[in-house]
């Protein structure tokens, strides 16, 4: 992997933080912009879940990961702590691969 990713991402992420905290200071954004920005994680992270659970490259696949993540979703729904959600997801996936 190239260091370009590390450097550009570090600069870009810091730029957003500094823009809000130091450059724009106490100003406020239009409400519609704030609402849309607040929804980015819900939309993008959900797509990442689908990607890492059901795809390999460009192919849709159904394998042990799907069962692991299904268990992780149930754990999150039952308000399990973060560590339990992650460990269950990984453990169920690993166990199914052993079968």
């Amino acid at each position, binding site marked *: 992997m190239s260091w370009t990713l590390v450097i550009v*991402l570090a600069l870009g992420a810091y730029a957003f933080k500094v823009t809000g905290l130091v450059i724009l200071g106490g100003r406020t954004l239009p409400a519609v912009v704030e609402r849309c920005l607040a*929804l980015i994680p*819900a*939309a993008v992270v*959900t797509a*990442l879940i689908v990607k890492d659970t059901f795809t390999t490259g*460009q192919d849709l696949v159904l394998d042990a990961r799907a069962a692991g993540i299904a268990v992780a979703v149930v754990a*999150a729904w039952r308000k399990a702590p973060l560590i339990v959600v*992650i460990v269950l997801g990984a453990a169920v996936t690993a166990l199914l691969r052993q079968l």
Partner: protein
Amino acid sequence: MVVACLTLSGAVGVFGFSFGVGSVAAGASVWQTCALSLFVFTGASQFSAMSVIGAGGSLGSALGGALLLAARNGVYGLAMSRRLDGSLGRRLLAAQLTIDETTAMAVAQPNRREQQIAFWLTGFALYTFWNVGTLIGALTGSAIDPQTFGLDAAFPAGFVAMVWPLLSDRRARLAAAIGGVVFLATVSFLPIGVPILLSVIGVLVGVQRPVPPPVGTEVSRP
């Protein structure tokens, strides 16, 4: 506040560990993985970038998705700028620590002084735990086969833990559904990583003004 901060730090340490494992599995070196946590220090973006790289996506698409997720820290910065005192140097340092958890801990405090204590305390604790967790995870990930231990499922499981609390909001659920469907509809024919960028279309749900629930809907049920 200290108890809440320590509980949060423990969770973030585990998150850092799973990032370390996954990042090495996706092709980054231990050094690169640690550099990401030290200098990027915003979890969702780091996970997203390495998830796309691990799948074979291009540098541009990996960066695009990660930067979309980093944008919200700008909004947190706006919220914190009204609460933090200090010199420019101090604000530049505070900026690096401005993420979901530190902002949430700070704004939950009743007065300006406690807000500042909460921000700095949470910031330094999380920074430490996130980076130590990442280092241990990266070393573990390079010593074992991640597939055997199901550690490739640690990324999506971590994403589940990340997104779940957001979904108590109806609009967030709609945005999430659109993001997921857009990804599924485009993954087979667009370059790897691009469907993640497109999933951001889901935020357009936010264009419409929130509708307050009709008065009395809860109590009028028989």
